[in-house]
């Protein structure tokens, strides 16, 4: 679902919640239809709810309660998704505008840098935007013959230096975890 659709969903959820609350208040006799009908707008609708008999009012309240629950769940879901929009990394912000890069591109670059070091077979990495620069976490699969702490240290230095000099991105933290086990182990099949 795209941003436009999500925004519509958020709006509809809010409308549903507001409508349900009004129905609660009208059915409960807390407010009168005239109070929520500026200029007579929707007066007939509100009057209908205000004049429901007890049985119908109970059904209306139950339905509205259900609507509120569904709307709140949808609202929380949509807001969580919207809040998780990928934050682009700003490389430059000057009078001519912004230069940004997608975090996925930066992750790839970390991978290229890591693989250029002898002894590194494969990497998995995450890049997060910190307050003063990037925070890079790398899991590196090494060949068994290399000195893991040394390669890890080289990896840290190279990522930090290369990113600063070639990409203009300050790197404040490079955490490296090395391993000899492949990332994706082949699954064993049970032979019958």
């Amino acid at each position, binding site marked *: 679902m795209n941003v436009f659709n999500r925004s519509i969903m958020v709006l509809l959820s809010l409308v549903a919640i507001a409508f349900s609350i009004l129905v609660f208040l009208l059915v409960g006799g807390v407010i009168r239809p005239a109070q929520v009908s500026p200029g007579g707008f929707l007066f007939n609708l509100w009057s209908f709810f205000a004049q429901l008999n007890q049985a119908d009012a109970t059904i209306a309240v139950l339905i509205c309660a259900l609507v509120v629950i569904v709307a709140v769940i949808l609202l929380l879901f949509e807001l969580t998704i919207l809040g998780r929009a990928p934050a682009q990394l700003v490389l*430059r912000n000057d009078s001519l505008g912004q230069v940004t890069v*997608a975090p996925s591109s930066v992750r790839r670059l970390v991978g290229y840098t890591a693989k*250029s070091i002898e002894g590194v077979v494969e990497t998995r990495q995450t890049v997060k935007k910190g307050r003063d620069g990037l925070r890079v976490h790398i899991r590196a699969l090494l060949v068994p013959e290399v000195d893991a702490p040394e390669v890890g240290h080289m990896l840290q230095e190279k990522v930090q230096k290369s990113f600063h000099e070639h990409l203009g991105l300050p790197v404040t933290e490079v955490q490296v975890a090395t391993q000899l086990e492949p990332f994706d182990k082949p699954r064993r099949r049970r032979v019958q």
Partner: protein
Amino acid sequence: MLPLDAGSGALEAQVLSAQMAPEHVSDMAIADAIVHDIRAIPGVVDMGQGLFAKAATYGPKKHVAGVVLQHATLDALSVEVHVVLEEAVFIKALSDVPRPDASSRTETTPMLLRMTDQIRAVVLQTFERLGLPAPPTVDVTIDDIR
């Protein structure tokens, strides 16, 4: 009205009016010219589609992906460019050991910014070639590297 794009999950957020830019060059013609010139830059593989929203300039029955034109004022267009860069360029640069004595501007300006500077310069040249006033802003986004 904004078109709904349920297929790709991307938002077609930029539906630009069919306004004519200054000098009666249409937005589509400007976007086409920008895309043509940017694709000619070494290291640019393709135009990007946008990360969260689909980035394109829309015209009658067609759109130009990777360039968003916004009418900042009546006589000025802001440009947003989305590009996909070539990974080979970066692999080469990243595998080279950085030289500590690099002193010239070309060497000290990070490669990524050199490329985006070039893209911005090309956009400005395109506007000049079309006889349009320079855009107040040229935002560049690197959508992908492949």
